[in-house]
């Protein structure tokens, strides 16, 4: 018994919500301890209590058998606890190196030693397999995945005994995840403990040692063997029910179905070139590719959020005015963007306002809004997607990460779109809600909506899409029916770009 960390009976209340209601967690040195739970179960809150970001209302924390009071992030850092938070907590204006060493900058007499910082940052990034990220570039200009790497580097830059990782793999593609696991194994080999949170159960099996399951703010199981415990059992513990975690059956797309979306020769220098594909009514086209292959850029360009250098986008045969979101929206195109916090959510607004913001016209007469109708429509969706807490008046800021994602999705489900562009729609969403989202997407396509789906989980792309476009370094290297290709072939394609 060498418990590095013991948390017992942790309670944390927010106005109106008891996020943690007696959680127990024990972590041993050198192990990867996985934390499972549905969206809103309280995982992130527990982590924030552990890192001193939140003060618990009750409960005890001891480290190496010694009772401690973690009343500030500094206190936790001094105890050797480092974290990668779910919401990337970086300073966009500062450089990569500065972010990594924020709070413990190499310095002499208060003067920062920038060369040392840059050198050490490079070292750490190299160790993470990302020597290509320039240490002096401002973090705000990195893509989400790059920022995630910086977050990791920052956690590693502290001499920590315990590193907490809150959904680090959400923005990573399979190759990156493998790389992450390599790093984690290196850490545990040195006796560092890792608390690992993810909604992808296969990852738990690959990297985890023991599992603790949270449900509704309480520990429902702890010390489970990460490899031996059956998936069914884990899901039952998390959700209180058993879910068949499968993709809904595929329907036949009629070749007579009209082409709704036509993308032709779309190019943005430096991002992607010569992208062309079509989507029929009721069809789902999946974009596969590594992080940085330009999938998000393609979607945003189709949507008009970026202006294409060349090429055209047509909806129902009518060309869209390039670089105009308005034109796309008017033509019935919707985009659920990749970064929910900065691109999608109005954090201080109520859930229902976030959901109806793109369909306000429907609830307004003469510019006046019918608040009741809005709330009802929103409530219907949040119930369908199992957003917790269930009230539509709740400010989105206070929702857990996964639930925020569901709110974004609900916005576009509400809007009657002809074309729906979904960028990582299930990022951070728990297994239960995930299968519900799959069903919803299928349902939409069954009703004639043309869907373009971007996901870093190849399994998801293949499971949902009718046709797959594989991108590599901004070029389409393969377009074809999803049935004709398997996961390995896709992975080969995204990395090599050679023939199947």
């Amino acid at each position, binding site marked *: 018994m060498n418990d590095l960390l013991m948390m017992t009976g942790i309670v944390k209340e927010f106005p109106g919500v008891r*996020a943690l209601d007696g959680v127990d967690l024990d972590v041993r040195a050198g192990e990867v301890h996985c934390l499972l739970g549905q969206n809103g179960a309280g995982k992130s809150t527990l982590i924030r209590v552990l890192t001193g970001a939140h003060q618990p209302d009750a409960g005890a924390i001891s480290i190496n058998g010694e009772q401690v009071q973690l009343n500030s992030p500094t206190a936790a850092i001094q105890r050797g606890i480092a974290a990668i938070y779910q919401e990337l907590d970086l300073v966009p204006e500062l450089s990569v190196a500065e972010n990594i060493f924020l709070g413990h900058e190499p310095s002499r007499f208060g003067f920062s030693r920038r060369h040392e910082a840059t050198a050490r940052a490079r070292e750490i990034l190299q160790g993470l397999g990302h020597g290509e990220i320039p240490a002096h570039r401002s973090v705000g200009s990195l893509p989400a995945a790059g920022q995630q790497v910086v977050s990791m580097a920052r956690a590693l830059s502290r001499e920590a005994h315990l590193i907490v990782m809150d959904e680090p793999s959400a923005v990573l593609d399979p190759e990156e995840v493998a790389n992450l696991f390599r790093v984690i194994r290196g850490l545990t080999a040195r006796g560092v403990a890792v608390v690992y949170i993810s909604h992808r159960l296969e990852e738990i099996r690959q990297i985890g040692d023991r599992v603790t399951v949270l449900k509704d703010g309480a520990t429902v199981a702890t010390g489970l063997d990460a490899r031996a415990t059956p998936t069914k059992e884990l899901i039952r513990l998390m959700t209180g029910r058993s879910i068949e975690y499968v993709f809904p059956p595929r329907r036949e797309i009629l070749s007579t179905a009209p082409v709704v979306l036509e993308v032709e020769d779309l190019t943005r220098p430096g991002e992607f070139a010569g992208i062309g594909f079509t989507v029929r009514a009721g069809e789902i086209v999946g974009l596969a590719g590594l992080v940085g292959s330009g999938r998000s850029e393609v979607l945003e360009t189709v949507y008009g*959020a970026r202006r294409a250098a060349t090429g055209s986008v047509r909806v129902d045969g009518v060309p869209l005015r390039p670089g105009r*979101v*308005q034109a796309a929206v008017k033509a019935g195109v919707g985009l659920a963007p990749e970064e929910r916090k*900065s691109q999608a959510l109005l954090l201080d607004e109520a859930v229902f306002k976030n959901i109806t*913001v793109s369909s306000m016209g429907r609830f307004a007469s003469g510019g*006046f809004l019918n608040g009741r109708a809005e709330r009802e429509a929103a409530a219907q*969706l949040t119930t369908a997607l199992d957003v917790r807490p269930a*009230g539509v008046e709740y400010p989105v800021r206070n929702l857990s990460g996964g639930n925020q994602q569901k709110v974004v999705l609900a916005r576009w489900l509400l809007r009657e779109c002809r074309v729906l562009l979904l960028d990582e729609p299930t990022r951070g969403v728990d297994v239960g809600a995930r299968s519900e989202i799959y069903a919803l997407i299928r349902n*939409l396509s069954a009703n004639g909506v043309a869907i373009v789906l971007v996901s870093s989980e190849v399994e998801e792309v293949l499971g949902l899409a009718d046709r797959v476009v594989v991108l590599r370094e901004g070029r389409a290297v393969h377009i074809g029916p999803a049935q004709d290709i398997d996961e390995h072939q896709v992975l080969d394609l995204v990395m090599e770009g050679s023939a199947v």
Partner: protein
Amino acid sequence: MTVEDGARPPEQTASTQATVTPPAAQRSTGLMHSGVGRNLGLVVALVLLCIVGVITAGHTFATGANVLTILRLAAVIGVVSIGMTFVITGGGIDLSVGAMVALASVWATTLATQQLASDLHWIFMVTTALVVGAACGLVNGLLIAYGKVVPFIATLAMLAAARGLAEIISDRKTQIITVNSFVDFFGGSLLGVPVLVWIFLLVAAAGWVLLNRTTFGRRTFAVGGNSEAARLAGIKVQRHTVALYVLAGLCCGIAAVMLMARTTTGSSTHGQLYELDAIAAVVIGGTLLSGGRGTIVGTVFGVLIFTTLNNVFTLNNLSISAQSVAKGAIIVIAVLLQQRLAARATSQ
């Protein structure tokens, strides 16, 4: 399309309806609380001020005439502050309000305009003021939305330019209004309440409805809260931004008309430092300077607190410098009070 069809079997939802979630009823009272709580501190601050007023100058403070005096004073800056609330909620700021008031008042009282007004109808003076205000607002809005000039700088430039223009037009002379029908109408009363106060009430009510009950208001929050998200949600962010500044300019035009009626003059020195007064009222009312959160009711309270403070000071014959110090202290106390009470109300 088919969201409704998309909903899955009902039992599934029911079974996952978790226990963490408090019942809907409970939450809605919580929200009620925070709704009141948001302004509770302001109400308390205002009531405290009134109590001080009654104790120290009861015989005059608590009279109807004095209340009307306070309201009349509040009316002009109040209307400006309503416009400012929109701009700030939408993530901007407008330093040019005072200058716009001055320019509108000067333009609406030029000989030519007054001639037109006395020949035909005073409505021409009013229209001139409103158009001038709105036009200045339009320039602000275009510079900010399409020229990408930061609001602080664009409106600071407008401040300088509009006041300079007002001076040039008026040749730095105070222009006296000779159109009696104008003065009679706006200087008069309706049901015992001055027309100016009615205008303030109307503008505040219209502002409240616009901000809280219309798509325009909803978009304002969205644009101010996260303009990128608003853009991707299909809102015409730039056009909306322009509209917000035009609205603020329009409010300045209305305020100019009110000030013209009150002073029977148009002058390039009207509206000095209104930008600070208005922003202070808006911010003390609880609107976030960074945008995305705004409250008309709070702004009205903010204006009333400042004007009542002035009134109580005048009644009490405090030394002028001491007034200044006291004002600083009272502002801080009001904000601290507001915070503590709001926090308590929300946490209940």
